[in-house]
């Protein structure tokens, strides 16, 4: 039997449950089949009118809730589905008992709610359209049905009730790194000895017209609307932005000791986490890539490994000109020219950018890469960017035995978080 602690004497952290929903489907089985077949989940938006929009495609998840239920309801449904899949696999019922960490998108009243409130105010005989009238409507009658769009902690609190998680759940946002941060917070809690087991979830069901417009105004989105499934093309020369998407990913993690003691199947080990904030700009990275480099190095150091121990990199790979260039530059600094031959691929070429959920979803895919010995491809790689010298597993999956994966997450606001996930020690 191998050791139960790492070099630093900290408990090794076993992953014993994993769950996922993405535009490709619900559950690990369907997702992995589609992902390794190189299928895209990106399609034309049907949830809301796309008139006047520069981008009319997304990886919306349309099979979980009705469109009129809104984004808060979808965000919760996605989180619940991923969490329950992970808990079931880990062998926990509805009385989980460990702490809960949820990466969730910011909430706000949706437009149909604002319009409805304004109409209520008008019916009360209040003056002109606007916030005074909306506030008058709110004063007249309580609207607890809007709580999910007002309280940022709603998704996590509902999920706590559903799963029997203990205490005050943590809801967090580190932008596009959020899902990875949820896993990191869980790992830290275990290492502090606060819990034998934790549930970490990243979820995002927030593709609305306004969210799309906001990213569009920042010139972050692909406008290659003609063939939706080919718009997300990380590491390609003609990449022009990311494609918004929805989904959720979840991990149940526990001490290797407790997992073995209860006879749980060990899916993998969460070996290390690293982070570093960037102080350069709100949406751009420091030109020398030093924060991303520091985050990668911190994750490897936390795991107690060197670049040569990494068999595959699950890229952040958003398909924006900026991210893919900076990610390649940073990784080249750590891994050497051509990344020292370490293959790297971007799940976002198929599922798009699931934003708050991305770090968690991609951690689940990283785990499955190890478990199946299959590297998912980077699809839509017809026109490689010659400036990016890397093996992005172009277009077709590849068989490769991998025992350790680096998963990157980088976000607006200078967020950089990396995870190292490994096979169970022999």
């Amino acid at each position, binding site marked *: 039997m191998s050791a139960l602690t790492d070099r630093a004497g900290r408990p090794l952290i076993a992953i014993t449950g994993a769950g996922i929903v993405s535009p490709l489907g619900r559950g690990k089985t369907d997702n992995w089949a589609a992902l390794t077949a190189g299928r895209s989940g990106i399609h034309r938006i049907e949830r*809301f*009118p*796309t*008139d*006047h*929009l520069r981008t009319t495609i997304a990886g919306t998840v349309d099979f979980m809730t009705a469109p009129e239920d809104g984004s808060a309801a979808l965000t919760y449904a996605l989180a619940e589905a991923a969490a329950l899949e992970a808990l079931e696999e880990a062998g926990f019922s509805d009385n989980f008992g460990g702490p809960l960490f949820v990466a*969730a998108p*910011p909430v*706000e009243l949706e*437009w*149909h709610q604002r319009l409805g409130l*304004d*109409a209520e105010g008008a019916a009360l005989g209040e003056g002109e*359209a*606007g*916030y*005074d009238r*909306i*506030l008058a409507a*709110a*004063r007249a009658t*309580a*609207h*607890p049905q809007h*709580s999910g769009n*007002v*309280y*940022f*902690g709603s998704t996590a609190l509902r999920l*706590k009730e559903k799963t029997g998680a203990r*205490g*005050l759940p*943590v*809801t*967090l*946002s*580190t*932008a596009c790194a959020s899902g990875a*941060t949820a896993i990191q*917070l869980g790992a830290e809690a275990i*290492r*502090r*000895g*606060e819990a034998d087991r934790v549930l970490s979830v990243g979820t995002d069901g927030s593709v609305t*017209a306004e969210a799309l*417009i*906001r990213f*569009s*105004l*920042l010139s972050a989105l692909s406008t290659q609307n003609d063939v939706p499934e080919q718009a997300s093309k990380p590491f390609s020369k003609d990449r022009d932005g990311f494609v918004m998407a929805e989904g959720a990913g979840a991990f149940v993690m526990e001490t290797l000791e407790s997992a073995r003691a209860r006879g749980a199947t060990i899916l993998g080990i969460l070996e290390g986490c690293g*982070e570093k*904030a*960037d*102080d350069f700009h*709100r949406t751009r990275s420091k030109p020398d890539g030093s*924060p991303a480099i520091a985050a990668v190095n911190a994750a490897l150091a936390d795991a107690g490994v060197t670049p040569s121990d990494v068999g595959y990199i699950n890229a952040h790979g958003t398909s924006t000109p900026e991210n893919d260039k900076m990610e390649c530059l940073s990784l080249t600094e750590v891994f050497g020219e051509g990344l020292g031959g370490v293959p790297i691929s971007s799940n976002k070429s198929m599922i798009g950018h699931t934003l708050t959920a991305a770090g968690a979803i991609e951690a689940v895919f990283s785990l499955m890469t190890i478990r199946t010995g299959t590297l998912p491809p980077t699809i839509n790689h017809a026109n490689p960017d010659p400036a990016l010298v890397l093996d992005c597993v172009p277009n077709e999956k590849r068989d490769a035995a991998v025992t350790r994966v680096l998963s990157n997450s980088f*976000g*607006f*606001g*200078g967020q950089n978080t990396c995870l190292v996930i490994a096979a169970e020690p022999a």
Partner: protein
Amino acid sequence: MAHSAVITGIGIVTAMGVGIEANWRALTDGSAPVVDTERFAPYPVHPAPEIDWSEQIPKRGDQRQMEAWQRLGTYAAGLALDDAGIKGDEALTGTMDMIVAAAGGERDAAVDTMILAEAAGGRADTGVLINEKLTTELRPTLFLAQLSNLLAGNISIVHKVTGSSRTFMGEEGAAMSAVQTAVARIRAGQSTHALVGAAFNAEHADMLLGYEMNRHLARGSWTPVAERASGEGGGLVAGSGGVFLVIEEAGHAAMRGAKIHASIDPVSVDAGAEDGMPARLERLAEETGIDDADMIVSANSGALARNAAEADFVAARWPETPVRTVANKTGHVREAQFPLAIAVAALSIAKGRPVAPLEDAEKPASDAPSTIGVIALGHQVAEAMVRISKPETAR
């Protein structure tokens, strides 16, 4: 645990004023609170004080990129770093961990009103209307002034805090978890120094609207927190402000010769169904061991039901202990209220003086406190307690 945590930096901006001294004066001089009952009538609000932003946010370009909540928070964070003697020391800011509690930023009310007016005027294709207005009328970078994690992002840019950056969400509970996590990481040796805090802009209709969805706001003239049950509305008066704390490992603080305001023990937090709250509060009191406190500082929001529940608990468990409800002077600064109550407790310890009664219902106190219990109940959910003390009586 081999490590203990101390508070070495405090940055406060509230209706009471800018900085430690202005706020401490207002907490001890019996002055009336600053309240604006006109601008958002029927809702009173405690407005932000006049601030010279350039003192903490030197670049005009940075100021322009932020909405009010981000400016308040970035400013207060700068004050805390100054107070801790960390500002501008890149070896310290570059390794400093940061946990910000945040919601979302302010919307563009003028653009929203445009859409609401056209829809109310009879335009039926509201989906197309929304696209048309938002694509042409929104300031392109407004999103960055709204995104939850961009208060932390701005603090990184302006103050160079880059060791790590995490943003917790979920109203008052976000800040409870933020302080809890920062202290737990320091005690476990996962961190040596951390910047923790939040900001809230009450002076925006959309921010008030969130509270009013469940009719939490007090209306009409301002009254002290203990008297709001007999007034109109839901008891909560919103306040603008920003509060940040520098929390540091005691040895790390000693080694660099930092002044220590107070020690902070582990934070206990919980949440759950309403009927389980008395038992949860008992457990938090036991865990934090604040029965020996010379004073209780409350982060209560004023919201009627949870205020009454807290008052009942405190009166039963600590009948003789003076209580100070900070909301009487600042209003409810939502995510910033728990850090604010901790800051007030730490200042009282550091100054060797009790906080004066903040409303008629509060008992006088004369002795210098050596231990203060901070109690916080979110206006709708989440509870926390923590023991703040002189370093020699820390646990």
